[in-house]
């Protein structure tokens, strides 16, 4: 399959008082056309930072290294004017909390229209398109709802408006940063269905950022497990669920509630994600890892192909070849 987006050794450091805080470290993965790629990890593992860096919407107090190649062009080397042409048109993004992602002083429709007006000038055509988009994201009573202000819409409706807005210019890639975190479960299911249809109907690739394995199982084609700014494991969704290799992925799987015969408490993972400032030696998961060997504390492992299409970043040979 054709590669749409390639991250090459992407490192992002936040400049903080004590030095450079490593949020993302030498990240490598690619997203193919029409694929739903899920980036999974705990809070603070850097997954949202990756999303914002692809859009080049980070705050400005960070140092970004590496390459983000989109359709053969390194986004990090583009000037601001060229990047503005890519945003919305080629890469769209929907955010975690739909409650504050729309401007409260404009009607929801006019904010979608604003996006369309970048490509289309005829007012009537724009309005028609907005209504059509509202219908396609299943907003009931679309002709009336375009005139509604964000505060007059529910969270789920607002997220639909966001999706409509980001669909309006048919981007090849949609970044969905925890798109359903602030919504309740029924609305979540509807939004997920919508995202899947979007991919099926428009052929857009989706970079799904989440910490929810339920969503991953529901939607994703491939999964990257992120920990402390690095990819620990990358594989097809089936592989990840049925034979996770990395101790961290295994721990994550073990901490999921499942309906099985075994009763008892859910497994938890001791400790917290380290805050890495300056140079760091060894594997970033080593301090919480049950299988850590001496080497893990001395040398950074590399993400290697364990089996075709299945990549793991681990030094312990028993982990890799055991079982």
């Amino acid at each position: 399959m054709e590669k749409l987006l390639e991250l090459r050794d992407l490192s992002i450091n936040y400049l903080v008082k004590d030095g450079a805080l490593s949020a993302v470290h030498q990240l490598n993965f690619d997203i193919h056309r029409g694929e739903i790629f899920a980036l999974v990890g705990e809070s603070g593992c850097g997954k949202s930072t990756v999303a914002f860096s692809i859009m080049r919407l980070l705050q400005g107090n960070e140092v970004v290294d590496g390459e983000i190649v989109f359709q053969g062009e390194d986004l990090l080397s583009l000037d601001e004017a060229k990047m503005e042409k890519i945003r919305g048109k080629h890469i769209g993004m929907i955010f975690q909390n739909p409650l504050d992602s729309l401007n409260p002083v404009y009607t929801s429709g006019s904010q979608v229209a604003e996006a369309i007006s970048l490509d289309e000038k005829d007012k009537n055509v724009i309005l028609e398109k907005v209504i059509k988009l509202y219908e396609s994201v299943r907003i009931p009573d679309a002709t009336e709802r375009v005139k509604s202000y964000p505060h007059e819409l529910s969270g789920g409706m607002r997220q639909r408006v966001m999706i409509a807005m980001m669909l309006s210019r048919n981007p090849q890639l949609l970044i969905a940063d925890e798109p359903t975190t602030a919504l309740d479960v029924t609305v979540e299911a509807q939004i997920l269905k919508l995202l899947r249809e979007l991919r099926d109907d428009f052929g857009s690739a989706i970079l799904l950022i989440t910490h929810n394995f339920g969503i991953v199982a529901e939607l994703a084609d491939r999964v990257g497990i992120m920990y402390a700014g690095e990819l620990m494991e990358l594989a097809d969704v089936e592989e990840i669920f049925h034979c996770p290799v990395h101790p961290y992925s295994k721990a994550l799987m073990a901490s999921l509630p499942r309906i099985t015969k075994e009763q008892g408490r859910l497994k938890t993972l001791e400790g917290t994600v380290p805050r890495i400032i300056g140079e760091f030696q060894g594997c970033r998961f080593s301090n919480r890892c049950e299988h850590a060997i001496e080497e893990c504390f001395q040398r950074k492992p590399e993400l290697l192909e364990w089996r075709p299409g299945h990549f793991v970043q681990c030094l312990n040979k028993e982990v890799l070849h055991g079982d």
Partner: protein
Amino acid sequence: MLAYTIRRLLQGILLIIAVSILVFSMLHLMPGDPVELITDRKVPPDVKAEMKRQFGLDLPLYQQYLRWVKNIFRGDFGISIRSKTPVASTFRHRIPVTLKLTGTALLVEFLVGVPLGLWAAYKKDSRFDRAVISTSLLFAALPSFWVAVMLIMIFGVHLKLLPLSGFSSAKHYVLPVLSIALGGIAGMLRMTKSEVLDVLNERFVFTAYAKGLDKRTVLVKHVLYNSIILILVMMFLSLPWIISGAVIIENIFVIPGMGGLLTQAIINQDMFVVQGCVLIISILTVLSNILADLLIAALDPRIRVSMSGGGN
């Protein structure tokens, strides 16, 4: 919205009535008798009594109040005890002068302070931001009368570019307006910056970028518009100060505005003038509060809803 406007206006009227009673009675609580003040010890008591009758000071207080209110509705604020001229005609001459002076100053504050604040917020922590913010801190700390004297020294005395006092031409307004506005710009700028910084971190600004808008459109349509709502409201709330004027500045530049009038009248116990001034200022305060409320309701749909009681 209409119901809200009417309700707000009715509240305002009640407030003005209450204020007018306060204004009226406050002056009667002041020590000293105005007739004693303008007459000599040698004036016989019956002449003084006649004068009291002339000014209506012998009537019971509530009648004095009603008479006062009735006259005000006819545009009669009484006769100044000092100058023996109608207070209303003094106001007619002085209000426009003050309005022109402080109105221009406010406009300058807005036109200079808001863009500078916007840019300082956008370029936060840049050299421009630091320079602008520290300069504004300096000007906010400098008292306007000191700035006025300095400006007179530099532009009036040494460079001889601008007139020292008076109010006859546009040139005359430059220094007084500058003396008032320099401090005001500082305040406006800092308020704009903090307001814009708040909005810049809002998620909807990221949305605006994410849909592909260019920086200028985002800054103007999504950042400035949202932050200007509060700035405009603050400006409306500062309207009463416009009429009460830049008292000291008017005195320094010998501009016959409301500020000078009020201070003199208080010193002279010229009670009709004081009453008139305070009443006008209070009415303006009430009106600008109402206007600020209506304005924010018109600009911000979230508030429009809560004001019309939820439904729409």
